[in-house]
């Protein structure tokens, strides 16, 4: 481990020396070529083997499904999953190589078709007056994959992380081997396939398919512990909130089809580049150019947990930790970022950049909002969840501030370090029986078997905080700097955005190290969570699965959660509260001595450790990408910038290129930001150390925490009073939503129910009643007496004869 550290330091050191010059030099030389690239890279060829990337996970899903039929009881589904995902990852790497080097090293775009899916052609009649020609429109949405460098970038970390996390989950979920295990991995595979469809699809319809698919798998996986009411509620909440966003997305897609006549990217980008719509109008003046991006943004908001739409993500922590790591840290939530990135040409086609302004402001508000909540929460898993929301806000701000490179890079690095953080938190949960309250854990790093976890958490935390020369530092800087670089007027209030983002970066550093210094360093202390019995047994009691165990014990995957100071069951989780207020089996113990007491924390096994190690290493290596510029030298952002600028996003290069020139304190923002953000980050870390750090190196020598439960920050709680309480309770957003939206809808539902019962059913019953009433009226005629019938018959015959005679032609000739 020592050698690893040394190597790390040496790499970082060299990078530090090289960074300013590299960045600066790149800035100068790349300007010319950067301006030249304003079009989609040329088409290239890609073999059908590229289909392995999306379809291997699908194959994995099918194979795991077969395991279900075969009633497999071993870890076979996990190995199948890991194998398929590894193959998919390898194919993604090869795809990247081919794409980067195709087209004489300029990067290529290729389209690989799997099969025909939707291929409709219809013609509308022309004008009634005959002036407009009859339009023949076609809706082509094939199962084809659009492979450019952006796609490859995304698929790289999606498949890679998926493989790593599958490895992690193989041990994490081992309690549940059997049908639950199979279910987990089947949904896991399906998720990766849907994500691949989303990212690699060559038309908006396939993207939408993947969009819905990931939503579905997210629902399946969050609600994995389906016997637990909170988990089920959280799954429903996630799906429903996503759905609201999906409405915007689907309307946006339909609008794009109606106006542009196509949903395929290649054709779409060609139209956008030409600036002229099929009907002949110029794109700039048409209203679609700001309406469609806004609608797509709404969809992105839902999936990427932006302001107003984020409420599902904290609750999604009810799912197993691998799910949180994969879906809610790295892949699904970045789908919104990807969407905006993919459709960036459309977003920048608007001369007023309306949608991008909205994106930027929502990003910054989300980031700030989530950060404030996080400073007060005690549940470390939820801290990670809100941290994801906050970082997503950064990414969106980056997109809005016209640095797609920054957003993509931040997505890339965030995926790795957030996954590391989640895996680490998962290890803690796994080992301490579900305990996640940071007031009940301390010094975990020093406990037997948790060393690697501690180091991984440290690596992840420094990335998240933006400590210089980490990957997170570089990626965040791109965004922060761009906030100042964008000229005033392009994005309304971009300076404000930039300052608030800077502040948020500081807050991020603070809460990250608050968590780290409370939980991982300091005096060794722990209180086992409510699932401790589970851990003590090593495995669950023979014959029961984790589901039933949880159901019996009515508890879930996150322990106590954030209850604040004794307010149990009070909206701590919003509507998903499981209200086990007085259900504490283990009293808090502040003097637990691990050497004499019975409960042994369960350190992570080989698979989990291996996964954590890989994720950690990758998040370290991601920093190097900033300096790696194999293709198409770009100004900043290194390798990722190169990728982004050779993808379809390049269509919007004219606009992106024009977003520079703003100054920060009279200096070039990019260069200055290295130091400014470093300073802000260190400030945050120091404050955290002061307030929460333990004595000694762990607290950077300025802390004095001796117990797990308390620290200097408790004084501040009194100082800020109600604000802290509100923050701890997530500003009561869930409750507000409940009263504002859920209740009225409930009432509306009841109204409609009554309407249905009385009016609709009433009408139907009336239809049934009418014949009966008629029959009743006619019943009187059946007197049962022969003569009556005879008379009626005769009268009838006479009448008919009479009528025939009168109506017939004269009747008498």
């Amino acid at each position, binding site marked *: 481990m020592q050698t690893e550290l040394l190597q790390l330091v040496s790499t970082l050191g060299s990078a530090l020396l090289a960074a300013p010059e590299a960045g600066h030099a790149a800035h100068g030389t790349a300007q010319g070529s950067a301006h030249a690239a304003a079009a989609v890279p040329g088409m290239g060829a890609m073999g059908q083997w590229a289909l392995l990337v999306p379809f291997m996970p699908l194959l994995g899903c099918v194979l795991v499904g077969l395991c279900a039929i075969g009633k497999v009881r071993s870890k076979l589904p996990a190995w199948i999953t890991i194998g398929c995902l590894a193959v998919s990852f390898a194919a993604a790497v090869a795809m990247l190589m081919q794409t980067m080097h195709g087209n004489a090293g300029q990067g290529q775009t290729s389209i690989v078709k799997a099969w025909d899916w939707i291929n409709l052609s219809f013609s509308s009649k022309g004008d009634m007056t005959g002036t407009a020609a009859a339009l023949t429109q076609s809706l082509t949405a094939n199962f084809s994959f659009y492979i450019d460098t952006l796609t490859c970038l995304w698929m790289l970390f999606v498949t890679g992380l998926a493989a790593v996390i599958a490895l992690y989950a193989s041990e994490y979920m081992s309690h549940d081997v059997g049908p639950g295990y199979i279910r987990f991995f089947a949904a896991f595979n399906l998720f990766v396939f849907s994500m691949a469809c989303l990212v690699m699809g060559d038309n908006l319809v396939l993207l939408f398919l993947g969009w819905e698919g990931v939503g579905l798998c997210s629902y399946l996986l969050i609600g994995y512990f389906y016997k637990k009411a909170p988990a089920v509620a959280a799954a429903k909440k996630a799906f429903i909130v996503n759905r609201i966003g999906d409405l915007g997305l689907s309307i946006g897609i339909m609008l794009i089809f109606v106006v542009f006549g196509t949903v395929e990217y290649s054709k779409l980008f060609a139209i956008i580049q030409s600036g002229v719509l099929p009907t002949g109008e110029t794109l700039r003046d048409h209203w679609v150019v700001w309406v469609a991006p806004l609608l797509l943004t709404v969809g992105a908001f839902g999936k990427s947990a932006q302001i107003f739409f984020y409420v599902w993500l904290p609750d999604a922590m009810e799912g197993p930790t691998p799910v949180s790591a994969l879906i809610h840290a790295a892949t699904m939530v970045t789908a919104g970022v990807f969407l905006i990135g993919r459709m960036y040409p459309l977003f920048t086609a608007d001369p007023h950049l309306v949608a991008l302004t909205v994106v930027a402001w929502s990003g910054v508000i989300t980031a700030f909002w989530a950060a404030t909540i996080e400073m007060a929460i005690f549940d470390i898993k939820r801290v990670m969840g809100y941290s994801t929301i906050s970082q997503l806000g950064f990414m969106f701000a980056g997109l809005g501030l016209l640095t797609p490179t920054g957003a993509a890079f931040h997505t890339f690095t965030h995926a790795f370090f957030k996954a590391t953080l989640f895996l680490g938190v998962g290890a803690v949960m796994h080992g301490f029986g579900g305990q996640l309250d940071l007031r009940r854990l301390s010094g975990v790093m020093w406990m037997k078997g948790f060393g690697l976890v501690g180091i991984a958490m440290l690596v992840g935390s420094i990335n998240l905080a933006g400590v210089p020369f980490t990957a997170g530092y570089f990626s965040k800087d791109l965004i922060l700097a761009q906030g100042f670089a964008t000229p005033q007027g392009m994005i309304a209030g971009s300076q404000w955005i930039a300052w608030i983002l800077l502040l948020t970066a500081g807050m991020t550093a603070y809460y990250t190290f608050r968590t780290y210094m409370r939980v991982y360093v300091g005096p060794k202390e722990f209180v086992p969570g409510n699932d401790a019995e589970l851990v003590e047994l090593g495995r669950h009691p023979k014959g029961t699965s984790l589901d039933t165990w949880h159901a019996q014990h009515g508890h879930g995957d996150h322990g106590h959660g954030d209850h604040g100071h004794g307010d149990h069951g009070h909206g701590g989780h919003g509507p998903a509260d499981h209200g086990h207020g007085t259900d504490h089996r283990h009293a808090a113990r502040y003097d637990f001595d691990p050497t004499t007491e019975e409960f042994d924390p369960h350190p992570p096994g080989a698979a989990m450790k291996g996964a954590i190690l890989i994720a950690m290493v990758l998040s370290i290596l991601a920093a190097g990408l900033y300096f790696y510029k194999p293709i198409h030298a770009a100004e900043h952002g290194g390798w990722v910038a190169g990728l982004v600028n050779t993808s379809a996003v390049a269509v919007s290069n004219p606009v992106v290129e024009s977003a520079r020139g703003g100054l920060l304190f009279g200096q070039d923002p990019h260069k200055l930001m290295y130091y400014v953000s470093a300073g802000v980050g260190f400030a945050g870390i120091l404050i955290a150390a002061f307030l929460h750090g333990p004595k000694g190196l762990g607290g950077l020598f300025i802390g004095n925490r001796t117990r797990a439960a308390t620290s200097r920050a408790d004084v501040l709680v009194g100082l800020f009073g109600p604000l802290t309480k509100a923050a701890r309770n997530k500003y009561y957003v869930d409750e507000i939503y409940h009263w504002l939206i859920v209740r009225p809808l409930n009432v509306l539902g009841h109204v409609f129910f009554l309407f249905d019962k009385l009016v609709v059913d009433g009408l139907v019953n009336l239809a049934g009643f009418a014949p009966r009433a008629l029959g009743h009226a006619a019943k*009187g005629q059946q007197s*049962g*007496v*022969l*003569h009556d019938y005879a008379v009626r018959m005769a009268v009838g015959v006479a009448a008919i004869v009479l009528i025939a005679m*009168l109506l017939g032609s*004269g009747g008498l000739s």
Partner: protein
Amino acid sequence: MSDLMSTLAQANFPSPMAPATLAHYLAVSGIMFGLGLIGFITRRNLIIMFLCTELMFQAAGIALIAFSRYHMNHTGETFVIFVLTIAAAEAALALALVVLLFRRKESLDAGRWSEMRG
């Protein structure tokens, strides 16, 4: 109403002093049929009701024979043979049924059978 009267006024009625025409026989047949119908509706005795149906058969027979004579072939007469056959069969079965009905209710009153009241 007036055009009804005019169409009816165009009817040509046969003179009674002329040799009997087809129309005469049809008139007799029609009147007998009507009488049979009235009897069927009016009488309550089951057997008399059937007798009135037989009266209607009679009327039909007269009409058939008259038409047979009018068309100058024997088809109508053949038909009347079959009418007789069927009338006989029907009389046998109808009377058997009437006997059964009588056994149940001890009366031939058709009004007694009203259990199928709506």
